[in-house]
């Protein structure tokens, strides 16, 4: 007994205790958590995780760490969920390239199957929002009017009335939502990429999200009609003012020059 209490003061004692504690929690976690999963697990799923892990090691680990635990170049992905990966990789944001104010959207370099595998792998690191299915983000059963109201309350302050985008501080910006896949709109709300807040189901219910997606489809989709003619970017009075000056007043001045030139001067020659 005496021996043990003497060793308690040993400089390495804390480390031993820590290792022991880790082993115990790890063991317990291994005993319970995967057991839960194992039930739902089918071979396809674990195959996807395995493939995803390989892809991750090649394309993502340099920044996010080999186990997705994060490095100084990229945040931890534990618990971000499949939806975050599907959004980030599906919109081409990940893998990130040069550093800047904000990782921009670009051409996506993975195919759908690979994205699913990456998502499955990251989802296996910790629980998080899963990729929504089509019924969740399709316009069926959505209330567009309500969606508009919700959009103006929650999103317009950054993304503009109909999602044409807007500036944030120091070069950051809320991008235009034109041509963004409905699934990605839904996922953006679930996961809150970069400077965007996330809107969990407690803040915006799944029905609310559906309404918002449907509203954007109606006012900022490819089939959106602009009843008034050219939209001029849908950015409001600044572009209207420019257009009014250049084409409105510009044309009037051109006409004035033409009218003024049509007089005796013409006869004189």
């Amino acid at each position, binding site marked *: 007994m005496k021996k043990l209490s003497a060793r308690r003061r040993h400089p390495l004692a804390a480390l031993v205790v820590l290792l022991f504690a880790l082993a115990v929690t790890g063991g317990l976690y291994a005993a319970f958590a995967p057991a839960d999963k194992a039930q739902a697990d089918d071979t396809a799923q674990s195959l996807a995780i395995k493939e995803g892990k390989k892809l991750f090691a090649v394309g993502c680990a340099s920044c996010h760490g080999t186990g997705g635990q994060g490095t100084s170049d990229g945040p931890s992905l534990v618990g971000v969920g499949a939806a975050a990966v599907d959004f980030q990789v599906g919109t081409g944001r990940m893998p990130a390239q040069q550093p800047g104010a904000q990782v921009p959207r670009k051409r996506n370099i993975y195919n759908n199957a690979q994205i699913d595998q990456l998502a499955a792998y990251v989802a296996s690191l910790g629980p998080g929002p899963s990729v929504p299915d089509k019924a969740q983000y399709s316009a069926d059963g959505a209330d567009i009017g309500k969606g508009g109201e919700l959009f103006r309350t929650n999103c317009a302050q950054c993304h503009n009335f109909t999602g044409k985008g807007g*500036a944030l501080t120091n070069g950051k910006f809320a991008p235009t939502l034109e041509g963004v896949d409905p699934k990605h709109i839904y996922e953006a709300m679930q996961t809150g990429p970069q400077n965007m807040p996330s809107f969990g189901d407690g803040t915006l219910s799944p029905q609310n999200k559906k309404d918002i997606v449907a509203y954007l489809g109606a006012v900022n989709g490819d089939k959106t009609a602009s009843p008034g003619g050219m939209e001029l970017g849908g950015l409001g009075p600044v572009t209207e003012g420019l257009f009014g000056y250049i084409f409105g007043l510009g044309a009037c001045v051109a006409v004035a020059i033409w009218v003024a030139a049509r007089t005796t001067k013409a006869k004189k020659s």
Partner: protein
Amino acid sequence: MSNETTATTTRRGQAPRGERIADWADGRLGIYSLAKSNMRKIFPDHWSFMLGEVALYSFIIIILTGVYLTLFFHPSMAEVTYHGSYVPMHGIRMTQAFESTLNISFDVRGGLLIRQIHHWAALVFLAAMMVHMMRVFFTGAFRKPREVNWLFGFLLFVLGMFTGFTGYSLPDDLLSGTGVRFIEGVILAMPLVGSYLQMFIFGGEFPGHDIIPRFFTVHVLLLPGIMLGLLVAHLILVFYHKHTQFPGAGKTNNNVVGMPLLPVYMAKAGGFFFLVFGVISVIAAVASINPVWAIGPYRPDQVSTGAQPDWYMGFAEGLVRVMPGWEWNFWGHTINFGVLIPILVFPLVLVAIAVYPFIESWVRGDKREHHILDRPRNVPTRTGFGVAWLVAYFVMLIGGGNDLWATHFHLSINSITWFVRIAFFVGPVLAFIATKRICLGLQRRDKDKVLHGRESGIIKRLPHGEFIEVHEPLNQEQLHVLTQHEQPEPLELGPEVDENGVRRKLKRTQKLRAKLSKGYYGEDNVIPKPTVEEYKEITSGHGHH
């Protein structure tokens, strides 16, 4: 035709019907003698003299379309739920003002087109006024006897801004509602009276139920009424003073060379009206403006990015956007400098241009009438001031749209804000100096042209091998244009001491005036015109190349 001849023709037989009607009217209204003296008024021809007309015609278009809109617009803030034909708004609660704007856009025949013509015409109206004002400014058309008319014009511009602002607020959409909220903030930022004034204007807490009906009255009755009166006065004065003209052969301070009002000028003006109407209608037919259905109804708890006013208020928006949000708190009161300073600077900038003519005439000590316009280069100080003013104005417009410049040119909004803060002070100074230099350069070139003729582009080789460019002498008219302007001496303060050797007491204003006068006519600020001797010497033959 005079009355006597009409009388004799009636005895012999009936005069033509039209003539009889005209005669009847003239007997009672005295139109003929009025018309006789005025129909032959002369208007000089220059496109820049038609900018005022563009403003006039767009104003007429605004009134015509505005009347149509009032037939369908309900200036009420009572809440309703929308069930009209624009599906994405179904079931949304909104004010009647907003609902009726949606109805005008989607359910009233021609409503959307008329709305768009009305709004586009308003933008063109203000733009035309601004450019017209600049034309008057840079050519010195504001000099005696036209100072009062300059003020009438300036008032029209300012009232136009507020008419536009109140009109833009009427639909009660999220964009304009944000603007009204901005105005509320401006009112609240006024020390001491702010909160009382806010309660008075809004009839209670923001937004209340009164502001739209009140804006409606102001927008359709009060301001347009005053503007109409001012506009008529403005035109009467243009008529009465007669129009100015650019320098040219045969044009003097005592005549006007141009077309008679009737029939030539009237025909042109009438045609020009339809052309302006056409241009604005085409724009309204192809380009959307203020799509309230996409913007949504106003709710105080909502706001959108990119919330800007129409361009003519963008300058005020810029001032507020770039002003640091300083405030003082003491004894439970707040003074909000972030808003208070911009609302003080806003009128100052406008007044600076309005009072310029009076300052100039005081500095120059010039009390004569001027009917011949200045070429801007010949008055470098005025031209420099005008450009400096424009730079300050447009820098603030950039500030008002800082978010859009940021997103569209991939810049940081913070850098743009800093750029605007600095450029507002530095830009006008640089612009003033640069413009003055350019004006002097142009004066020098004019002098060169007078003395050595115009570069013809023909290269000649002389017998001894030298290449020279052949210069063509200017004709008499061109020479006149380049040399007709006056170059007075700067104001002198006179000797320091009077005839008795006593130091003269000079008022500070006198010294200031002498200094400013040097700014206009001092050695560094004019290129002396070629004298007759110089001209004769050079053109006499020898040494001419």
